[in-house]
């Protein structure tokens, strides 16, 4: 155990204490106690920054289930540290924000909220710090669970429960698929340690399980990171309280998939399939999200689709970045890792500006009582600080200089344009989609940024549509977005603060082995890089984005624009309905409630299984050696036996049927005599007589109405099934007989014959076996009889009154 282990476990430990703090220290808002923890963790983690930026990595072991290779190992490198800082840093701000957002200590269930939030924080830290895939998976599912709990925080609202269920179903389905992928990785490499798997990357890529493992892992990453078509849960997750949306659904949890893709790029990145799937899904998600965002009327929904589209952007860049594995950097220069650089940089930028924007939306919601852009407007003079922060955030998101969004957008364009020059994987023909999609998506991004900003803060103030007296937010609500916005400005003006401290080590962990020993990635982010194609693309984005926004009135009436819900929700909702109705149908089909049907199922299954086994293994055989002679009278007895059996189903008189059954029993007793089994014959006779008497007793009590009117009904299925059962059992018996001679096995009966008198002092071998050699069976059969007798007494004497079910 090290302090880094404690970093992961501390939130869970604090979560245990939160209910006590909430219950016993009511006068202080519980959030203040909670806030200390992420702040401490942030300060602790930031101390690793100098070491990490020198290229060091930190690894601590902690065995957990060593026999299965599952260890709670902590590995800290650039990528983990970046995520760790994001989680703890934004976590601190979000907790601070939530203190003022959920200000009503009496009305809000703060204990629940902070327990869930801390659970999420710990799980998220576990995801990014774990070196073991199984540990990672456990924390991964914990984030899904905590996320669902947080979405359904106001569980009395139906939409919240719907959103929680949806996100749970989608992310857990993806998580389980990912578990399959991890298992396949284990099968290929015999280890769960990510570092050891990366070390074996060149072996894995030739393995036939490579593609299935890759697809399974990507399913987990794509569902978590809301990539198309799994993005539909994210807009519905906006029913959560705004701090949750800001924290989980913009800055941290949805980036877990990004983290996983970045972390496993060294394993899978060399495959062309990886390049195409990751970058293809990413670029399409980018376009889909930005186009969908512009149709929304709710501020949080706009931000949700915006998050989807920005995540797609990062994902696409990670995919493009994997092309670096195919080139010798020393030869072709720095061209191909620009994409990875842009991905890491935009990851940081997105966390800052999206977090602040969510908080701004929360403030607007808090102060005006609505998030609907049709009701809002003209808040600029009323809420000046909020306005300023929102301006910075939106401009950064839209990609306008001098904010950090501009820098990452420029780099994104560079990477997309570079993608067309790649001479691998048919990029000459298809490569053009990257810059085109990127450009169109950026235009729409610019459009929805303007829409969001202008509709909220500019235009006319409409107090008649608002329920509250509008005024500026309290300072506590404003501090977190101000901090984030200042980071946006700082990173925008001085991007190289980040360059070698965190971006370069992160790139080194995403693309290990690309550079020669001792070399470092060249990271230099700058605003002005001359009149090149990226600059013209940005100009085009601004011009066309503004055009889209200015003409919004014209096409806001079109069907495309009015349809707010994502069309893929139709698929999700209906497949849930189909799943329920389909399984109901299947259940109703087989669970008829009729014993007759269940017997048919069982018999058909037995016949099928036995028949199939016989055919498959060719075990059917008839062997007539060692067959005894049959005296002529036996033929007649057997004939009577058969005749009685065949006649039985056709007898329509109940008592006759009972008597016929009695004859069957007598004949069986006779057969026992013929085959020299006097004890059996005795018992058989007695039992048969008692049975006949019992049958008569039972039939006497049948209801009056149907008495004596019994006619056996004919069913073709029953005939077929019964013939099948008889046939299969007969064939099996014949085969067993034949086999027992072709594979002779010594019978143990000789032992009993020889030792019955000597060891057990009895001449009746059957009885000696029953009470001496195998006495335990007899004892238990006596117990069975005793239980049956007791049960009969209970059934008769203790009949429940007024109930049918006894």
């Amino acid at each position, binding site marked *: 155990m090290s302090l880094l282990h404690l970093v992961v476990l501390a939130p869970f430990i604090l979560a245990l204490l939160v209910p006590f703090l909430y219950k016993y220290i009511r006068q202080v808002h519980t959030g203040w106690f909670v806030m200390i923890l992420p702040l401490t963790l942030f300060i602790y983690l930031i101390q690793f920054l100098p070491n990490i930026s020198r290229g060091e990595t930190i690894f601590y072991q902690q065995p957990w289930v060593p026999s299965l290779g599952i260890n709670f190992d902590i590995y800290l490198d650039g990528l983990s540290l970046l995520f760790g800082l994001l989680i703890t840093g934004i976590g601190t701000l979000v907790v601070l924000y939530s203190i003022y957002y959920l200000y009503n200590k009496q009305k809000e269930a703060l204990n629940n909220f902070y327990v869930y939030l801390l659970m999420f924080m710990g799980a998220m830290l576990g995801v990014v710090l774990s070196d073991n895939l199984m540990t990672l998976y456990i924390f991964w599912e914990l984030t899904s669970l905590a996320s669902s709990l947080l979405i359904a925080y106001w569980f009395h609202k139906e939409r919240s429960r719907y959103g929680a269920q949806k996100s749970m179903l989608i992310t857990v389905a993806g998580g389980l698929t990912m578990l399959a992928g991890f298992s396949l990785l284990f099968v290929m490499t015999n280890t769960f340690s990510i570092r050891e798997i990366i070390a074996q990357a060149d072996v894995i890529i030739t393995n036939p399980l490579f593609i299935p493992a890759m697809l399974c892992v990507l399913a987990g990453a794509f569902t978590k990171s809301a990539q198309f078509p799994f993005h539909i849960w994210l807009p519905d997750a906006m029913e959560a309280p705004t701090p949750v949306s800001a924290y989980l659904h913009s800055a941290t949890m949805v980036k877990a998939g990004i983290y996983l893709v970045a972390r496993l790029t060294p394993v899978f990145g060399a495959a062309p399939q990886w390049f195409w799937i990751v970058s293809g899904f990413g670029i399409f998600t980018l376009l889909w999200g930005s186009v969908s965002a512009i149709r929304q009327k709710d501020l949080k929904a706009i931000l949700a689709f915006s998050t989807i589209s920005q995540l797609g952007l990062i994902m696409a860049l990670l995919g493009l970045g994997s092309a670096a594995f195919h080139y010798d950097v020393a030869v072709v220069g720095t061209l191909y890792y620009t994409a990875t650089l842009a991905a890491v940089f935009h990851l940081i930028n997105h966390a800052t500006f999206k977090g602040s924007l969510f908080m701004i939306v929360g403030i607007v919601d808090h102060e005006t009582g609505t998030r609907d852009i049709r009701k809002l407007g003209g808040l600029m003079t009323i809420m000046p600080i909020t306005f300023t922060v929102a301006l910075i955030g939106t401009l950064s998101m839209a990609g306008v200089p001098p904010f950090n969004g501009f820098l990452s957008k420029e780099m994104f364009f560079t990477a997309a344009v570079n993608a067309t020059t790649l001479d691998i994987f048919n990029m000459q023909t298809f490569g053009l989609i990257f810059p085109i999609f990127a450009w169109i998506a950026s235009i729409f991004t610019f459009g929805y940024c303007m829409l969001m900003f202008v509709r909220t803060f500019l235009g006319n103030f409409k107090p008649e549509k608002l329920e509250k007296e509008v005024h500026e937010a309290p300072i506590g609500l404003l501090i977190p977005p101000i901090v984030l916005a200042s980071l946006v400005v700082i990173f925008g003006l001085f991007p190289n603060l980040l360059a070698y401290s965190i971006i370069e080590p992160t790139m080194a962990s995403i693309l290990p082995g690309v550079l020669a020993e001792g070399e470092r990635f060249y990271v230099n982010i700058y605003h002005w890089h001359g009149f090149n194609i990226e600059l013209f693309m940005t100009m085009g984005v601004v011009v066309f984005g503004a055009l889209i926004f200015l003409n919004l009135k014209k096409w806001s009436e079109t069907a495309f624009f009015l349809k707010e819900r994502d069309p893929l929700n139709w698929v999700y909702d209906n497949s849930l309905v189909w799943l329920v109705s389909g399984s109901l149908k299947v259940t109703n089909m087989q669970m008829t409630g009729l014993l007759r049907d269940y017997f048919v199922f069982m018999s058909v299954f037995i016949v099928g299984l036995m028949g199939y086994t016989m055919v498959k293994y060719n075990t059917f055989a008839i062997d007539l050696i060692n067959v005894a002679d049959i005296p002529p*009278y036996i033929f*007649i007895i057997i004939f*009577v036996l058969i*005749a009685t059996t065949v006649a039985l189903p056709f007898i329509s008189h109940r008592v006759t049927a009972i008597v*016929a059954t009695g004859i069957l029993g*007598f004949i069986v007793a*006779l057969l026992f*005599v013929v085959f*020299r089994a006097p004890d059996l014959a005795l018992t058989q006779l007695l039992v048969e*007589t008692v049975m006949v008497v019992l049958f008569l007793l039972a039939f006497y009590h049948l209801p009056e109405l149907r008495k004596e009117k019994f006619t056996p009904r004919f069913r073709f299925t029953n005939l077929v099934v019964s013939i099948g059962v008889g046939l299969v059992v007969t064939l099996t018996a014949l085969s067993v007989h034949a086999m027992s001679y072709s594979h002779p096995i010594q019978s143990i009966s000789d032992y009993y014959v020889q030792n019955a008198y000597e060891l057990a002092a009895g001449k009746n071998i059957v009885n000696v076996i029953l009470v001496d050699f195998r006495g335990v069976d007899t004892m238990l059969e006596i117990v069975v009889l005793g239980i049956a007798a007791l049960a009969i007494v209970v059934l008769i004497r203790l009949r429940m009154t007024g109930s049918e079910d006894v």
Partner: protein
Amino acid sequence: MLEISLNIALIIMSMSIFVCFIRIVKGPTMSDRVVALDTIGITLIGIIGIIMIIQNTLAYAEVILVIAILAFIGTIALAKFIEGGVIFDRDRN
């Protein structure tokens, strides 16, 4: 010689069981069936006796006794069933 005659006797007795069985199936009244069942029991006693001669054993003597008792008890039970529909009387006096 003895062997052959014993076998012939067995065949005849088996056919007698079959004939009784036909009576049980057809028997217009309940009493016909009960009498047929009783006859089958007695015939079984005969068959078992002959089998004891063939197999040269005394092991089935108990079986014969039991069948004799059971045939009696069974016939009584069925007769009571036909008579009153009740086999065991509730009145213990």
